């Protein structure tokens, strides 16, 4: 127990310290009470506003939760994508591209397949996962068959996906059909049956996508820690030579793990489309895939760690919008996330401090 606490302490402390630093900076420039007010409104935007229950009813909570969960879902899935690849020793910089591909496939499947409601969403999610997985497998295949380093191939695949999808398909062949000279932002709207249901109706965007992300995290946790295959992934990541000698089919392992990683990112794209956007928007523009790297690292590659980081930072970002109303820069949550990551990177220093404190205690 103590060991587990010690293991997650650096991440938790790093995030806490980053928040504190952020607070100090705001307090220095705007005054302490303003800073306190700003942070309070950020938390209100993230976790709910008890003070407005009278006015908004239960939506004083459900709406902020919906926004936090929307972002947490994407961060969880892309974070898991990166974490899974890390397991087999691959650095998946390509979650962004896999997400883009998954989102497009989900949008097309959601808009153009004729299936019963419910099943339609499942099929669209499944196809997006397959598409993301296939896209990632390209990198894995290049790695095991041609020795191409995954960092270069995933970077390249990101660009290829982005250019093909947002530079050609979405504004071109896959563009929504619209009257006259209007431009619609993206592809055709998905059919209602393909939308991920909102859990609390119209006024909160909290949808089934969040449950899906939590489910994927738990499934991966169980798989990685308790299954023979999961053990093989770990061995392959730590020492491929020994893995090979131990009879682990190395190439297959790498391709499988990368496919699962891509499927996670593809699901993220699908959830974005089926859950909130209901079409592939003109551009996705936010670097969810790169944020996924941060989540994987803050969560130390542990599925629950990824989930925890994603929920926290998803909430901060959702609530962080309100910081703009207090005149604080729009990138503030991202800055906190970056600083936290730097502090996690310095975890050796933390660990030394902690070890000393524990020894003294």
């Amino acid at each position: 127990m103590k060991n587990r606490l010690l293991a997650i302490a650096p991440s938790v402390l790093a995030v806490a310290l980053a928040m504190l630093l952020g607070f100090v900076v705001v307090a220095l420039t705007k005054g302490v009470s303003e800073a306190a007010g700003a942070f309070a409104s950020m938390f209100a935007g993230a976790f709910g506003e008890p003070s407005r229950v009278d006015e908004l009813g239960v939506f004083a909570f459900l709406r902020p939760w919906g926004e936090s969960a929307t972002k947490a879902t994407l961060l969880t899935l892309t974070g898991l994508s990166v974490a899974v690849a890390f397991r087999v020793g691959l650095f998946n910089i390509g979650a962004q591209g896999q997400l883009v591909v998954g989102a497009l496939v989900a949008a097309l499947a959601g808009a153009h397949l004729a299936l019963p409601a419910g099943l339609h969403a499942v099929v669209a999610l499944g196809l997006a996962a397959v598409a993301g997985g296939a896209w990632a497998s390209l990198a894995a295949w290049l790695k095991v068959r041609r020795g191409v380093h995954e960092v270069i191939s995933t970077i390249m695949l990101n660009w290829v996906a982005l250019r093909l999808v947002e530079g050609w398909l979405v504004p071109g062949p896959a563009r929504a059909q619209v009257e006259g000279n209007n431009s619609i932002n993206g592809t055709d709207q998905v059919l209602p049956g393909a939308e991920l249901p909102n859990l609390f109706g119209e006024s909160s965007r909290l949808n089934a996508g969040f449950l899906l992300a939590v489910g994927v995290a738990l499934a991966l946790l169980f798989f990685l820690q308790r299954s023979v295959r999961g053990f093989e992934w770990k061995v392959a990541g730590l020492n491929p030579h020994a893995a090979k000698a131990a009879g682990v089919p190395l190439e297959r392992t790498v391709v499988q793990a990368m496919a699962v990683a891509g499927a996670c990112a593809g699901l993220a794209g699908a959830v974005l489309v089926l859950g909130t956007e209901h079409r592939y928007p003109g551009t996705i523009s936010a670097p969810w895939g790169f944020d996924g790297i941060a989540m994987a690292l803050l969560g130390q590659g542990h599925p629950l760690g990824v989930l925890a980081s994603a929920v926290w930072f998803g909430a901060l970002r959702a609530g962080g919008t309100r910081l703009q109303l207090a005149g604080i820069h729009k990138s503030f949550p991202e800055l906190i996330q970056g600083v936290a990551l730097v502090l996690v990177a310095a975890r050796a220093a933390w660990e030394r401090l902690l070890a000393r404190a524990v020894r003294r205690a």
Partner: protein
Amino acid sequence: MLEFFHTLLFSTLEAAPPLVFAAVGASLCERAGVVNVGVEGMMRAGAFAAAAAALVMPTPLGVVVGALAGASLAAVHGLLCIRLRSDQVVSGMALNLVMLALGTFLLEAVFHSSSGSTPITQLSRLSLGSIDAVPLLGALFNHSALTYLAVLAPLLAHWALKHTRWGLRVRAVGEQPQAVAAVGIPVGTLRFSAVLLSGALAGVGGAVLSTATLDHFEHHMPSGLGFMAVAAMVFGRWTPLGAAGAATFFALADSLRIGLASSAPSLAQLVPGGVQLALPYALTLLVLAVQGQRGGAPAALGQSFDLERR
């Protein structure tokens, strides 16, 4: 036809330097065994600092400040992964994220603008007057001094790795840090020097954007060029010459696409724009897939070194 190649050459020489500097820098860092995926952030730091400094000093000095800014960020990277032995990929990505947000932050704090800094005096261009018009030969001129420096940098880096004491040690430390430590060379200091140099080069790469390509810092800079530089470095098999070659190839591919679009519009029209834009990347993948690309990475790349750990 000649005109086509003339503009192709000119355009490549304009577009390649930021990538070349950054990729060569990354190759030095990784040769020493330290992963550098923080190039994007270091370029951003360099671009911002150079533009800000050039407001109060001659622009060439601003470029130096850009190099220093890149090196400062690299120093944090070095501190994290050499002294504190944190994961090198983590550190690099963390710095990227911080710089992405910090760049826009500082822009607002210093320039009260969220789009760009105040314009500066752009770096002057080397023009030989009449020669500029000579086909092909002329394309070699009318660039800023940084373009010529970008031609020199990889050669210099290659030469330094091969013929200086520092270079020998860097080559050794990336492969087998134990061996270097065992003969009494401080591994950390040696790696730190390579990391700093890499940061300085990435900083110059960024500075090219804000002092030569444009005359101010624009809030998107370097818009992904840092990651391209890392890709170029890997493509170039972790060597300065290879990295520079790959970086130039990327720039050339881009110039070729642009050149075809205007010189042969009917040809360009056959392929949709988005597909054309994807082509250089897809082609790179294809080349790698066909020729294969095994090995090349320094053996101890990414491993932090601790004398007493085995």
